[in-house]
């Protein structure tokens, strides 16, 4: 009997330990962080929601597509990067294409041709972020180069002067954090919201 108890003893301790750990680390901890977040930083904790006319139109951190019902790019909006998830934030996913995957190569070719045609630019001048999908499939940003490349098309589709659109892009261009972390970005949703509020 004594030896059985000796053998079983760590399991009893472990069982009781797991119950306590689940209550403290699995429930109390996230709820405490929830409380702090909701009280002190509610905007961030709830997803950095962007509103248009008081209605939520998305999160400034989650990219969106600006396409018609058939998935065709709408020329009057700045376009996000290509996305393996189709910007469906209920199921984030990446392409996971290896560098030599023939499907990957074909998709780059197709994107090059499509952007060259829609934006009237030399295929060689298209920025790399316009041709590749992001890791999350929800990248909210494009490079300033890709934003600038789209200015003429957007201005033309909206019938407003190029200079006004360019000014807007410049004001939404973010530099690197502290000057050397990450890359310069343009937040596509925020840019497009501002664009929609330009007086025609």
């Amino acid at each position, binding site marked *: 009997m004594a030896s059985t108890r000796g053998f079983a003893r*760590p*399991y009893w*301790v*472990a069982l*009781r*330990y797991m119950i306590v750990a*689940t209550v403290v*680390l*699995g*429930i109390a*901890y*996230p709820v*405490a*962080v929830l409380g*702090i*977040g*909701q009280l002190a930083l509610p905007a*961030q*904790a*709830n*997803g*950095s929601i962007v509103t248009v006319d008081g*209605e939520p*139109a*998305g*999160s400034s*951190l989650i990219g969106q597509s600006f*396409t018609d*019902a058939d998935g065709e790019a*709408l020329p009057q909006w700045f376009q996000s990067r290509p996305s393996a998830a189709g910007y*469906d*934030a209920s*199921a*984030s*996913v*990446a*392409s*996971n*294409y*290896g*560098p*030599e*995957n*023939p499907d990957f*190569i074909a998709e780059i070719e197709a994107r090059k041709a499509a952007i060259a045609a829609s934006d009237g630019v030399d295929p060689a001048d298209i920025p*790399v*972020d316009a*041709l*590749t999908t*992001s*890791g*999350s499939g*929800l*990248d909210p*940003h494009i*490079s300033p180069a890709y934003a600038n490349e789209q200015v003429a098309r957007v201005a033309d589709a909206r019938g407003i002067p190029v200079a006004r659109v360019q000014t807007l892009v410049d004001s939404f261009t973010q530099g690197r*954090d502290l000057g050397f972390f*990450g*890359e310069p970005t343009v937040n596509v*949703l925020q840019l497009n919201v501002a664009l929609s509020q330009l007086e025609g």
Partner: protein
Amino acid sequence: MEAWLLVAQLATLVLVLAVIHRPLGDYLAWTFTSAKDFRVERGLYRVVGVDPDSEQSWGAYLRGVLAFSLIGVLFVYALQRLQAVLPYSLGFPAVPEGLSFNTAASFVANTNWQSYSPDVTLGYTVQIAGLAVQNFVSAGVGLAVAIALVRGFARRNTGTIGNFWVDLTRATLRILLPLAVVSAVVLIAGGVIQNFNGFTDVTTLTGGSATVPGGPVASQEAIKMLGNNGGGFYNTNSAHPFENPTPWTNLFEIVLMLAIPFSLPRTFGKMVGDTRQGYAILAAMGVLFVASLAALTAFEIGGAGTGPQLAGGAMEGKEQRFGIAASTLFATTSTITSTGAVNSMHDSFTSLGGMMTLFNMMLGEIAPGGIGAGLYGILIIAVITVFIAGLLVGRTPEYLGKKLGPREIKLASLYILATPTLVLVGTALSFAIPPIREDVESTSIWNPGLHGFTEVLYAFTSAANNNGSAFAGLTANTPWFNTALGLAMLFGRFIPIVLVLALAGSLAAQGKVPVTAGTLPTHRPQFVGLLVGVIVIVVALTYFPVLALGPLAEGLQ
């Protein structure tokens, strides 16, 4: 340009770690050596039935580790199987048996390999009450085992190496929990969400609809990084903007991954009474880290390969806000610790860049490695190094005043054989058994050709080394991978732990031999060089052939 950015980011990181490693390392040493229990700890010991003042032999310590881990597997398994009836399940059904086993093994083994896609599989309760709990305690187990080994070196003529329950409790309550709370709040300030909102649908500017996901992400993210776990709240892990919204949160997460592993050598030095010994270990870790980071970054900036060349750079699978330098810094950190989080998709790296992430794991994750596991891993290699140096010059091998006899060398040798065996046998079986091979090739592998082979090699390397990152094109939610990788994770975690604790026991039982003119100094640059050399040679000899079949062949064609 990117090279300059990398240098600036690395310099910042080194500065931050240089500032924190000393107070944190000393705090860790105090945590595991102080005689006093906090009131809340005494309460816990009473509830679970532990006498905190009783010391354990290595066998008793090990039985505690194994019992606790087994119960942990059962808890996580049961929670997943019961998901349908749990609150905040988001309407997701019970997780199937095979997948539940794989995930339970994965989180208990501090691996966080994810055969499942969390976005479409797990509700909030399983994530916080199942997975996040293991994020804490599996990290605590790693830390406890490392400290037990250090005690083996520090103590003399004793049969005991500490008390597992006390070490686990202190690791969790004095170190991980307070750091996690603070880190979670910092992450929220950066934009990481913390709510129970579920999925919210909104109408977009174009009149279409978009979804904003919710979730208690910040609390999960903090401990996922700090405990070198790496399992994402979302499928795309730290590439997801709600897990890692900005370049500065990216650096913050990197610091969290490295804070404890790079502080532990200080703890080690402190506990064995000679901090120079710790700094020698730290130097070896630092050399390997920087060299590997430089190589990966050079390959990604180079952007070799048909696809990257055509697109104008290796940006597939990378986020615009991070670019290349912040992606390679994260990828190196994640794979050279045991974290396995990703902020960019390793499957889409250049062929040789992807190989570097594999190589980092093949190093055994010791530069600096996972929480605790990195320290005990590199101390094992240090034992081997002292032995080899002793053979070369005809000196009796001694390390920190402990004689390294046949028993110690056998244990260390078995340790360095265990994970490579799991990796190579697992990979080989995936292609050697005809029905499995057919399933692997038709169902699991995503990229054709050599890259597909690398996906399988990566999976077993990641599982056996308890990393958890993936060449994520691989569909691993199949009976073969759920079973084989689940076992690889458990064996890859617990076989080394058995050997480490046995070694700790055998070292603690010894006296201390005095330093003589014949003793190899283990705190000088010469030893650091030897140690790095042994690490690289052991890994290269073990894995070169299999790397030549996959990423090397692809990258050099």
